[in-house]
């Protein structure tokens, strides 16, 4: 049984239909990439998975439990945690307070130990723990958003465009970190436009276009696919 299973999911806003029957799975301990251009519906899929948007049809289940009609806090409670697009750290709160809030719903009992762990993972955050999160650089804010999510001891981490707006070197650091976390057992759904780098770390990938999965398979197969290479890599 996969950890995350999305079945024939349809969702949208008002008259606009964004997802039209999406199927996707993430297994325990897997890194899976969800690729696609702007407007393909990637963020909408994340919003449904996190309970911010009700689907019109189909369902999302997590660890065998149907979550697509649960409240966002119940989904976090179950261990599905999202790092949203644009990081969305709380700008007026300090770095430390942002991390504390990461364990608001889940991981409360081991909060001190997890704080140590996150600070060890991101020494930069430890240096700036008293600073307002809004004053951090984009890369540091991304670290903080990931650190905040880790405070909830996620079983599956969904990252929405973590590379957006970051310098290439920082993107590499973020992706390397994901590999490291994955080795420790964390399942990751990496939602990205950055095709090459995402495929480099993901075992499998899906390609979403106009609300439908148009290609899926092992990363190596997708990288070799002539049509995808032309569409996404300009090769």
């Amino acid at each position, binding site marked *: 049984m996969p950890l995350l299973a999305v079945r024939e999911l349809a969702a949208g806003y008002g008259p606009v239909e964004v997802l039209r029957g999406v199927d996707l799975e993430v297994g325990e301990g897997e890194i899976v990439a969800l690729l696609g251009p702007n407007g393909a519906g990637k963020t909408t899929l994340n919003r449904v998975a996190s309970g911010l948007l009700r689907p019109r049809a189909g369902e999302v289940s997590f660890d065998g439990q149907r979550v697509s009609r649960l409240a966002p*806090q119940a989904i976090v409670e179950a261990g599905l945690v999202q790092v*949203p697009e644009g990081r969305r750290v*709380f700008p007026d*709160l300090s770095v430390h307070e942002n991390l504390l809030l990461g364990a608001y719903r889940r991981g409360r009992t081991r909060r001190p130990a997890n704080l140590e762990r996150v600070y060890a993972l991101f020494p930069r955050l430890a240096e700036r723990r008293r600073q307002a999160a809004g004053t951090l650089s984009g890369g540091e804010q991304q670290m903080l958003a990931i650190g905040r999510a880790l405070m909830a001891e996620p079983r599956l981490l969904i990252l929405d465009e973590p590379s957006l707006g970051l310098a290439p070197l920082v993107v590499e650091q973020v992706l390397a970190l994901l590999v490291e976390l994955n080795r420790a057992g964390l399942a990751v759904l990496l939602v990205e436009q950055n095709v090459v780098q995402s495929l480099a770390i993901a075992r499998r990938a899906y390609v979403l276009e106009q609300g439908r999965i148009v290609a899926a398979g092992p990363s190596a197969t997708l990288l070799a696919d002539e049509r995808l290479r032309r569409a996404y890599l300009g090769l």
Partner: protein
Amino acid sequence: MLEPSILTASLVHGLANGAVYALVALGLSLVYGVLHIINFAHGALLMAALYGVYFLVERLGLDPYAAIPILVPAAGAAGYLLHRWVVAKASRGREEAVLLVTLGIALVLENLAVALFRSDTRTIETGWAFAMVAVGPALLPAAKLAAAAGALLAVALLWALVRATDLGRAIRAVAKDREAARLVGIDVEHVFALAFAIGTATLGAAACLLLPTYYVSPQVGHGFVLIAFTIVVLGGMGSFWGAFWGGLLIGVVESLGGLFLGESLGQIGIFAIFIATLLLRPTGLFGRAV
């Protein structure tokens, strides 16, 4: 020319009143910060709390200060339920509708008070009502001094709650970014109602502190809601310390205004400040540009 001692005495009176104003304004400011609406029921809820103290004192013979541990949690619980069952339900999450719902609550509460208690002005008798304390050159009723001290303590507790507890952090997170708050697992509707509850709990405390030197009538909230709103605008919408310093300032302005212009015109300074703030510094003293 006025003697300096009269001026100082007036300042002390103003600061003492201002401390209670600050507490009332902080409740309003907190609700504004989280829900992004001005709670027009704030004054009517203060009136209801004042009646609560009045009956606890008159019927059960409680000391008004002994009523604090009863009235603060009761007002908080009432605020929580009021938000969950009335404000949130009737407005369906639309901010402009929330505004009207709170106005409706104010009308209902005031008319209910008229129907139940008639529009008589009521005061309580306490054994120490006429005790006076010298503060510098000012002779202050002991109850007024106690009210100021209690209000400052309540402000400090509120500050600690907002800064140093998980609930306080959640409140500040929800105030800034509701969706991101949901993504860390915060039950945003619960936090809305809790913020509303804290806002009304401050009124429970303020009512116990006020009544010994004040009165209660169904319309008593009007003056307070105007003053509190002015303070919140002056200090900067949603700003904690803005509401605090704004409260003290307004208390002093009212007191000095009364001294120079007479009781009936004393409040004119408050509204002059309100208009000047809107014209010259619409983000308030401590506010940030939106």
